[in-house]
């Protein structure tokens, strides 16, 4: 088959099984867009800003497990995409981003809309390519998908100069069946000897904790994690990125850990004698003060990325490889032991954890006139039966969603954990809707974050992707305000948002349904009404308590056992 470079790009996507490309046209990708026009297999979604394209592709990828695909033009098209690429990179999301580049003869001459895309994206991609020859396009595309989706996944950028996509120049096309790279051999199965060592520690543990992260979701190992947890009877805590891999409503789940983790999860980590870290990377929001992290524990660490091992926390038994085969191996070894593991075996430990649970650390003041943000999330959970896909932006609302909406399934909780990108939630929700057209999708956001990628409301109307926007509007950049209250003696420097738009009217202007909810008793009915409108995007602007904080909180540089507790919790400040 003889194809032009532009046609090769699109045919490669088709051969890769790509359903949707999120993109925005411009000069250097016009040939590619013309190739899109001439076919119907790969569907293009025209966003309103390139950042929206990357977040939408990201939401699609996180909720489906398939790589997200983005197509943008050179120069500003590429630079606008950077935030979304970095977001995907920090959370190891498989994504292929095709960027147009100026024609080869003018590269390096500061041509119109020229930017060194490979140079700019280098620190925030798994890998990137500048394709210099039309005959390399197909193989490079294959490599890009291979790299993006294997090992520790991540975004890959393919930068394609305009002149090699010229419709008048055709070469014979064959998409490679497979590709191998001599410098890239991701580890699959773990070392059996290491697993054996891990099992030995598990047998001896008196105060174990399973600490699982986003790697379990990415590695499709949720079932194996559940089996391991239930086989052992150990308490399970999860990172922000891992929520849903182990069911949030399971009695063995002790809540999220870290800066806004539960009291019981953080105390258990601190007092544990064995941490089993699975697909988690000891992020600073999880560890708190590194020197005081799990001072009594041996640590087993399962991770596909060797560079994650002992990066910040030195571990005792590293097992490098994909989470799923390693967990299966552990389960098999455990079974052959013929020993009984259950809650009773570590009864004293569970008694201690149950005692910590009595602190009721997520209690909040219910007897108020104002709408508490936690209450909105709880009602969202009720109205959607805990079955919705929930995306979020970044800030207090993100933590409230993580704390008060227990996820029982993986890939339901979609948020920017590593980079912490405000503006992520709305386009990500749209991406989720493309992957799961029938599912309920909620975007939990705040009046700050939502204004960072608001323009995608227009895309959502065009492509009919009905999402429920849950705007927890307290008039403040809430997390900033909270930190200023705690550490800057309430000097609220630029955290109050004046001149907010009328979000109801704004939603209506974009062709959607807008609601403003000011009374507590209207919260649940409004949510019911919104979710009953299956085919409409509804923007619910909840005017919430302006002073509410996220608790518990480990302040920066503090240890797990040093938490600030909610005023309504039974314990005030805990210092062990």
């Amino acid at each position, binding site marked *: 088959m003889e194809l032009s470079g532009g046609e090769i790009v699109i045919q490669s996507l088709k051969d890769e099984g790509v359903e949707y490309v999120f993109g925005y046209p411009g000069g250097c990708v016009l040939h590619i867009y013309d190739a899109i026009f001439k076919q119907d297999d790969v569907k293009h979604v025209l966003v309103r800003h390139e950042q929206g394209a990357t977040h939408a592709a990201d939401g699609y990828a996180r909720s489906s497990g398939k790589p997200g695909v983005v197509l943008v033009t050179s120069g500003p098209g590429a630079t606008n995409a950077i935030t979304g690429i970095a977001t995907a990179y920090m959370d190891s999301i498989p994504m292929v981003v095709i960027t147009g580049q100026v024609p080869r003869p003018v590269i390096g001459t500061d041509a119109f809309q020229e930017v060194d895309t*490979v*140079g700019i994206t*280098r*620190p925030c991609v*798994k*890998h990137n390519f*500048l394709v210099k020859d039309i005959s390399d396009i197909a193989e490079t595309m294959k490599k890009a998908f291979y*790299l993006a989706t294997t090992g520790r996944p991540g975004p890959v950028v393919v930068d394609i100069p305009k002149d090699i996509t010229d419709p008048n120049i055709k070469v014979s096309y064959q998409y490679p069946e497979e590709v191998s*790279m*001599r*410098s*890239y051999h991701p580890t699959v199965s773990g070392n059996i000897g290491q697993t054996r060592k891990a099992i030995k520690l598990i047998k001896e543990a008196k105060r174990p904790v399973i600490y699982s992260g986003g790697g379990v979701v990415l590695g499709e190992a949720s079932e194996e994690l559940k089996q391991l947890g239930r086989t052992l009877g150990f308490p399970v805590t999860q990172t922000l990125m891992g929520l849903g891999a182990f069911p949030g409503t399971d009695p063995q789940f002790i809540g999220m850990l870290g800066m806004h983790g539960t009291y019981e999860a953080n105390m258990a980590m601190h007092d544990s004698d064995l941490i089993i870290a699975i697909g988690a990377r000891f992020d600073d929001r999880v560890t708190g003060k590194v020197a005081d992290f799990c001072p009594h524990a041996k640590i087993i660490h399962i991770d596909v*990325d*060797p*560079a994650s*091992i*002992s*990066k910040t926390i*030195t571990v005792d038994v590293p097992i490098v490889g994909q989470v799923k085969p390693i967990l299966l191996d552990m389960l098999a070894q455990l079974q052959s032991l013929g020993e009984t593991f259950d809650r009773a075996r570590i009864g004293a430990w569970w008694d201690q954890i149950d005692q910590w649970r009595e602190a009721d650390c997520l209690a909040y003041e219910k007897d108020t006139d104002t709408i508490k943000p936690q209450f909105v999330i709880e009602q969202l959970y009720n109205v959607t039966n805990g079955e919705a896909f929930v995306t979020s932006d970044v800030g207090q609302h993100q933590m409230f969603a993580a704390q008060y909406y227990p996820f029982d399934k993986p890939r339901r909780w979609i948020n920017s954990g590593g980079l912490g990108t405000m503006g992520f939630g709305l386009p990500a929700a749209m991406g989720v809707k493309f992957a799961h057209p029938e599912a309920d999708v909620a975007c939990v956001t705040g009046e700050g974050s939502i204004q960072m990628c608001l323009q995608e409301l227009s895309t959502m109307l065009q492509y009919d992707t009905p999402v429920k926007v849950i705007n927890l509007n307290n008039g403040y950049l809430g997390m900033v305000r909270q930190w200023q209250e705690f550490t800057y003696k309430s000097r609220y420097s630029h955290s109050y948002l004046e001149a907010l738009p009328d979000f109801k009217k704004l939603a209506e202007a974009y062709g959607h349904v807008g609601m403003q909810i000011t009374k507590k008793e209207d919260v649940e009915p409004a949510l019911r009404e919104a979710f009953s409108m299956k085919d409409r995007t509804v923007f619910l602007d909840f005017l919430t308590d302006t002073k509410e904080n996220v608790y518990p909180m480990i302040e920066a540089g503090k240890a797990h056992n040093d938490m600030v507790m909610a005023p309504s919790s039974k314990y005030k400040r805990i210092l062990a």
Partner: protein
Amino acid sequence: MSRQHIISLLLENEAGALSRVSGLFSARAYNIESLTVAATQDPTLSRLTLVTVGSDETIEQIKKQLNKLIDVVKLIDLSESFSLERELILLKVKKSDAMVQKIESLSVESSARITDDTDGYLIIELTGEKVWLDDFLSSLADEVLEVVRTGVVGLSRGERSLTV
């Protein structure tokens, strides 16, 4: 405790591969004392040698991060094996009888030689281990007008080699 390591890599000989390595060091705030790179007998591969300083944990992390780069084909820490290391230095001094004498006396122990003698200026060439070169340089002290060093290269001795 911080220690100096000589890390040698085989790199895909492609545009941008070097900047992936140097970018990694700046992005993660690792030290580079010297870095040298050139193609090998296999034109698709470059060999890059870098000298870095760090604690054992940092060096371990540097090696893992380097290995993670897609363009890095293979890596060896020469400091962990019995290896030979060399660096070449060229330096310029003003010619004088005293200087010529001094270099001749130094050359007995250091293999330094006068490679160029033009218009009253000498270029001295010297190859050796980094510490020898440092000693040689400090013995000439203020008389050195200009100096250029290649950075350290090395090979492990015996059978062990860095090949694909």
